[in-house]
Every structure is written in C-alpha cells, then in structure tokens.
C-alpha cells in the first residue's frame, strides 16, 4: 500500500530532483510532469539524473499556463501514469515542484491508510467561496475563456465583456454542479480512476477546457460526482495573499512550519536551504497530530492586513494615503483645548496632574512650539522650531501623535495661533476639541496695551475664532467637539471640566476635587462693554454680566472625623 505523488514542476529542477528522491525513498512512487516550457536540455538533465530511480517516472508533457487547461491536462497525465504503473497505490497526492513534505512521509502514508475511502479535496460551491479573486465567480463556468489572462489581458477582458453584452451563456454539462477549491488535492484510486475513466470524460474535458482556472474546479467538481466521502480541505498548507499569489516560506519559517503539523507545505523558496535540509532529513518520532495551520494563518492574515489597511495614522515612505482615503488621519485620540489656558492660570499643570496625560502648551504659537515643559525636542526627535512645524503642519500633528502612541496628548490652541492645521484637526475623528469661545479676550483684558490696539486685536481674534467655530460645526468636521461660550462656561465650570476629564478617561473616573485657578474676571464685563462702546461687538463670549460673575468652585471635602 502506498501513496502516489503526482508532481507538476516548471522551475528549480535541482530542488525537484531532491524532493522526488525524498518521496521515492519513503516508498512513494512519483510521476513527474515537467512543463513543456522548460527547455529540452534541462529536461534531459533531470531525466538522466533520476534514471536510477525506478519509482520516479516522467509523464507526457503539456504546456502549462496559469489559469488555463494545461495544468489539468498535466495532472491527468501524471495521475494516469501512476495508476497504470503502480498497482498498490491507494491515494494519489497532487503536489507542485515547490511543495515539501513537512512531516515524515510515513506519517502521511499511515494517515491516509487509516482513511482509505476519504478524498481530501477542498470543494465548495461558487456561492460559498469568498476567496475567489478576479471578480469572476459563477461566470467562470458560464462564459468561455479562450484567451490568456496573463498574456492577452486586453483580449481576455474584451471577450468577457462581449459575452456579457450579448448574454452568451454556456450550458453546464448535465450532472455537474460547479465546485471550486484549492488545486492541491489527494484523491483515492476509486475516485480518481472514476474521473479519468468516465465515458463522459471527453465531454467534460471539452467543457472545462474553456473554463477559467480549471485546475481549481475540474477535480473539485467531478469528485463531488464520484466520491463517497469527501473531506473538504487540502492536506497541503498553502496560503494566498490579497492578490491571490501564494505566500512563500523561507528559512525563518522553520518553527512555524514544524508546529503546523501539516503534511505538505507550499511554496517553499527554492533557496531556503535550511528548510530543505530540515524537512528532507526529517525522520521524526511518531506523531499523530492533526494538521493545524491556525498559527500560520494568523501570521499571513496580519501581513495581508498590513498591506491593505496599514497602520492608521502612520505616514511613511511606503504609506501615504490620500486625504480622506484612510480611516483615520492620526493614530490615537488626543485633546485640544481652546480658551482654557486663558481662563485658568495654571491650566496645563492642573490638567497634567488630573488627567495623567502629556499636556503641551500652544503647539501652534507663532514663534515657537510650546512642548510640555517647554522642551526643545520631544519623542521621535520632533523639534520646537516653528519653521519646521510650519513647513508641514499636518505632518507635525500626525508625527507627534504617532511618536507618543500609548500616551495621550493634550495641547492648547486658539485664534492667536497658526491656523495651518485647524482644518486637519477638525476633520480628525481622533481629536477631542473643547472650546471656550471668546476666552481669548481675557488676556487682552489683563494686558496693559492701548485700547485702540486691543480693539483691533480683539476684532482679529474674534474673526478667526468665528471661522474656526463655523468649521467645527460644519458637516465635514469629524472631531468630537464641545463648544461653550465664555459666559456659559464660567457659569458652571466644574461640570464641564469633569465631563472633559472623564472622557479622556486616563485615570479611574473620579470626582474632581481640585479646580484650576480661574483668572481674575473682576471688571471683565465692563471691558467687554467698552469694546462694544467702541463699535467692536464681542459676541462669542455670550451674555457676560456687567458685574462680577458668581463662580461656583467646589471646596475641598473636609476630612471626616473618626470618633472612637
């Protein structure tokens, strides 16, 4: 009793020789199909090299091309040769030249001997295969594909469109229900010979000759017709990327492959010397483990995810999403505070203490970047040079957020700052923006400048902030925004602060016990009135009372007494 190996090869013939000898040495007859595209002299050399091996035979050669009939014809010839030449074969295993047995061959033979009637072939109806690439699913079976997808793409596409336009459809031969699956199967002699010796075979072959990628559907469909017991999975470990191209295994995959307990792996890079050495000298202890490719699945799924989705918020030499193309423009949530530092004297320190985050000053101050602690460099070597920041303001934000992943960033912003990144931040769903509108007037109020200058300055700041608020309230803004007028905020500051700190959520949600110190607002109402009297109407701060506002700040909770 043995397992026949049908081996389709087209390249790396030195490895082919090695692997074929390995199978034969373990008692498995091998039928080699060498692609007709391989030069005759290379073929002759391989044949001569394996002439000493009675268990290794060469079958009729066909021209193989991806997605076309030649590959099926090749496997038919190889299978026929095996079944006709070696009587004791009970299963035939189809492998490629880049497949390598990952477990000792006798384990595979034993495994199959215990499952004498089972056909291992992945086979699913077209409706159930999400992994089919190229958009053609059911149409693979109902259109004709006489042109090569690789070489004659224009003709291929044209002919598909032409048939769709005319509504041309082929009838699927009676008794066949199209199924698809991995092309690497292992079939019993009964099933395989039934397929190959079916009186209808010429009819089926003629049909499949014009099906697209028939090697993924010919046996998969016909096995459903003849097999009594299909196990719909492939014994070959074979992973595909997002383009339908097989992943390749290298030396550094050795442990991963070993632990997968799969019988055969593909594709192995022909120069992966360590893998070939390890697996072709693999006698190993008896191992009853079932194949378990889950871990490898995860590795490759992650790789595909990185290629298709990437790391959000990262901008680098090979990831440069167009604006709006990627899910989030930054990598992590961050908070922007507008007006808070104007209203509270020690807001930065207070926020850093209460929220446990990194709190910067005005990152977009015109003269320099005010990093936390006024450092000249922060994470990643980002510098406080205003020129560098203004050279690429959006990149400045994304770099800062990326460099500090894991530590939430907060910074102050306002109408007196550079507005170059305002739009970017407003459109960023990771931004949490809190605005006390009109608070910019407080520093003006405290400053000792001529009233004419103040008036001019106030008009300018109000204009900028109005624009900002318009943007934040517009449909394109995706940031989480809270806007209070100064009057509103001063009315109940603790509630608002509590809300913000809770949302940052770094420390365990607790009641704020310490309030930041509010700037002295005595006479501020009058200041605003003076501006109004001068014809400049400050409207953003809401209705600010002329007399001093009553600010409600909590007192420290008194210490409880303990009575003994």
């Amino acid at each position: 009793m043995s397992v026949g190996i049908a081996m389709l090869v087209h390249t790396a013939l030195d490895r082919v020789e090695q692997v074929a000898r390995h199978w034969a040495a373990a008692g498995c007859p091998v039928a080699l199909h060498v692609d007709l595209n391989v030069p005759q002299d290379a073929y002759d050399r391989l044949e001569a090299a394996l002439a000493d091996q009675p268990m290794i035979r060469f079958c009729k050669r066909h021209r193989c091309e991806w997605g076309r009939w030649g590959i099926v014809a090749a496997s038919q010839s190889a299978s026929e040769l095996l079944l006709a030449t070696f009587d004791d074969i009970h299963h035939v295993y189809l492998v490629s030249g880049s497949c390598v047995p990952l477990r000792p061959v006798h384990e595979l033979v034993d495994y199959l001997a215990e499952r004498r009637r089972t056909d291992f072939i992945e086979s699913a109806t077209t409706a159930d295969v999400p992994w089919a690439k190229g958009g053609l699913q059911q149409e693979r079976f109902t259109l004709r594909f006489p042109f090569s997808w690789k070489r004659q793409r224009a003709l291929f596409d044209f002919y598909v469109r032409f048939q769709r336009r005319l509504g041309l459809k082929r009838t699927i031969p009676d008794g066949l229900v199209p199924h698809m699956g991995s092309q690497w199967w292992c079939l019993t002699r009964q099933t395989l010979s039934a397929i190959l010796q079916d009186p209808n075979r010429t009819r089926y072959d003629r049909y499949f000759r014009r099906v697209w990628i028939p090697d993924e559907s010919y046996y998969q469909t016909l096995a459903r017709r003849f097999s009594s017991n299909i196990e719909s999975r492939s014994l070959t470990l074979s992973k595909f990327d997002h383009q339908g191209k097989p992943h390749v295994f290298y030396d550094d995959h050795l442990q991963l492959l070993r632990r997968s307990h799969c019988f055969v792996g593909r594709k192995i890079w022909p120069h992966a010397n360590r893998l070939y050495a390890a697996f072709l000298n693999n006698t190993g202890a008896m191992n009853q483990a079932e194949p378990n490719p889950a871990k490898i699945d995860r590795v490759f799924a992650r790789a595909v995810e990185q290629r298709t989705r990437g790391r959000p918020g990262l901008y680098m030499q090979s990831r440069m999403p167009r604006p709006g193309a990627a899910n989030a423009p930054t990598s992590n949530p961050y908070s922007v505070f507008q007006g808070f530092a104007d209203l509270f004297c020690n807001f930065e320190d207070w926020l850093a203490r209460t929220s446990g985050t990194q709190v910067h000053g005005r990152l977009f101050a015109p003269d320099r970047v005010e990093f936390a602690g006024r450092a000249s460099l922060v994470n990643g070597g980002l510098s406080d040079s205003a020129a560098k920041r203004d050279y690429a303001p959006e990149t400045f934000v994304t770099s800062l957020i990326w460099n500090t992943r894991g530590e939430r960033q907060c910074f102050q912003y306002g109408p007196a700052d550079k507005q170059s990144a305002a739009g970017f931040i407003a459109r960023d769903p990771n931004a949490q923006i809190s605005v006390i509108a009109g608070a910019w007037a407080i520093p003006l109020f405290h400053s000792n400048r001529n009233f004419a200058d103040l008036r001019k300055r106030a008009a300018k700041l109000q204009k900028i902030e109005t624009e900002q608020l318009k943007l934040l309230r517009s449909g394109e803004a995706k940031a989480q925004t809270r806007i209070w007028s100064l009057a509103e905020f001063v009315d109940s500051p603790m509630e608002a602060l509590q809300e913000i700190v809770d949302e940052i959520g770094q420390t365990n949600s607790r009641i704020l016990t310490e309030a930041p110190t509010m700037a002295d607002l005595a006479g501020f109402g009058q200041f605003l009135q003076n501006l109004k009297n001068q014809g400049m109407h400050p409207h953003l701060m809401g209705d600010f009372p002329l007399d001093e506002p009553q600010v409600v700040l909590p007192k420290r909770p008194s210490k409880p007494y303990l009575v003994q």
Partner: protein
Amino acid sequence: MRLRRRRRLFRCLRKSRELSSVQDNTAAIRPDDILLFSTFRNEGARLPYFLKYYRDLGVDHFLFVDNDSDDDTRDLIAEQPDISVWHTTSSYKTSNFGTDWVNYLLRTYGHGHWTLVVDPDEFFVYPFCDTRPLRALTDWLAASSVKSFGAMLLDMYPQGRLDAQHYEPGQNPMEIAAWFDSGNYTLKRNPELGNLWIQGGPRSRMFFADNPEKAPALNKIPLVNWDRRYTYVSSTHMLLPRGLNLVYDETGGEKASGVLLHAKFLDNFSAKASEELTRKQHFYGSVEYRAYLDKLEDGAGPWNEWSEKYINWRQIEILGLMSKGNWA
C-alpha cells in the same frame, strides 16, 4: 516626460566618454545576478566593510565608478573577480552628481537584472534581512510584479561628539554611529514625477531648523529590476518612467520598503565635509556641507535624549520607518 527620459538617456551616453574602464570583469555576470552600482571618491576606510556587507547579502557583482581617488581605494578593489571599475577625473557636479555615469553603466550592464544603486556610506536594510538573502526579496518582488523598491535614508550618528570614537577600516560603522531620529520626517508628493519627497532627521533638525525646505532629500529607490529604458533623474531619489516612483500606497495600505542606514557621521566627517567644500562638487553649491561645518565647530553632535539606538530591522519597522508590507 518621454522626451525628458530620452534626454537623460542621451546625456548619459554622452557622459559615458568620461569613463575609462580600469578593471572589467563584467563577462563574469550571469543572467540572474544581482548587481550593485556605486560612485565614490577616497573611500578606502569604509569600503572593506561595505564590500563584506553586500557580499553577505548576496550581491553578485559590483560596478564602481572611481571619481579619481588618491588614497588606497584603488588597491582595495583591484583584482577581485566580482568587481568592475571605471575611472574618471571629470567633475562630479557636471555629471549630475554621478547620476549620468551610473545611468550609463545601468543601461549597459543592468538590463534584465535586479540592480542596487547605493553610496559607499549607505547600508541597505530590508524586511527579514537578518534571515533572508537579497535574492529572497528580489524573487518575491518579481513574483508580485513589483519593479522598484523604496528605502529611505536613515542618518546614523554616534552618541556625543562625532570625533570621540575612531572608525577603523573594516569595522561595522553602526557600532559607532548607532543612533537615529525616529519620528521627525516630513513627506510631500512631487506632483511632477510622482515620488515622495522626504526630509527630516538629524541633518534637518540641526542644520536646517530655520529653512527646512532646504534640508536634503531622504527618499531613495535603490533597488530596481532594471530595463534599458529606465533612468535615474536625480541621484537615486527618483526615476523615469514615473510609475517606478510609486513605491508607496495611497489608499491606506503599506507597501514593503526598507531603509538605507547612512553612516555619514563618523570621525572623518569633518574632514570629508571640508574636502567637499573646497571641491564644490555637491548639491546647492554645497550649502549642506557649509552648514555642517558651521554647526559642528562647537563639537556638539546630533545625539539627544530622544535618539533611538539601532537594534535591527524589526525595530525600524515597528517605529514606522519601513514596512514589511504583505511579505511575511
């Protein structure tokens, strides 16, 4: 664009007359060999490690343009069967900073090969470079129908003063210049040629804080499956036809990419900079070198508390400076 490409190709043919073959082993090049091209002057110190590094990666043949070295560079590369050398005394500057010469060699010898174009102080790092040879990468790129591979320059520097540690020929320069900036790079699209324009790192931070737009470009595309119709436009920053410059994904995914560790800041840096300044053969009338010398007089190096110490490619990958893409 086609015209521009043609003009470049014509120019490199014209400039090829400045090259004279010193050592021609190109007959030994086999059809699928990986070729490395480089232009240099007086690199006797760094060349021994350079050759070892790239031979270990699996480069099969080196094609060098020697821009009139007068140190022991020539002896180092003489009579080695995998090295071919051309000599020129012409101006580096008027040959478009060596690009014309390399374009000519690429066109003549590179067709159909994977070609790596690097300077003698650039060390190519790609995903899995510690376990997989360069050929694994080129095979994978070819199977994915990818023709060009990006690797940005990553400027490496020592801790403390540049001249604190002496670099011995043959030594791994990254033993001394082990540090780099991890997150202060800016990227802009070049609408004309489609490449990204990357700036930043220690040179921009130290020497161009006030005019960052003048900072040197760090984007490079050193590895290409060459065709005789291709041409580099400016150093290895960009290529024609433009499609080769699209080494980045624009929909959010990451293409695979590497870095070129740039061992520029060693103890011979000041000497090199002074020499280049007197030769006046570099970009922007050598603005860069003048800035270096001005700043380095006072002895402070680029190192700071946020510098990252180089460990391996995985670290660079995690920091987001390069990517595995879907290679696993």
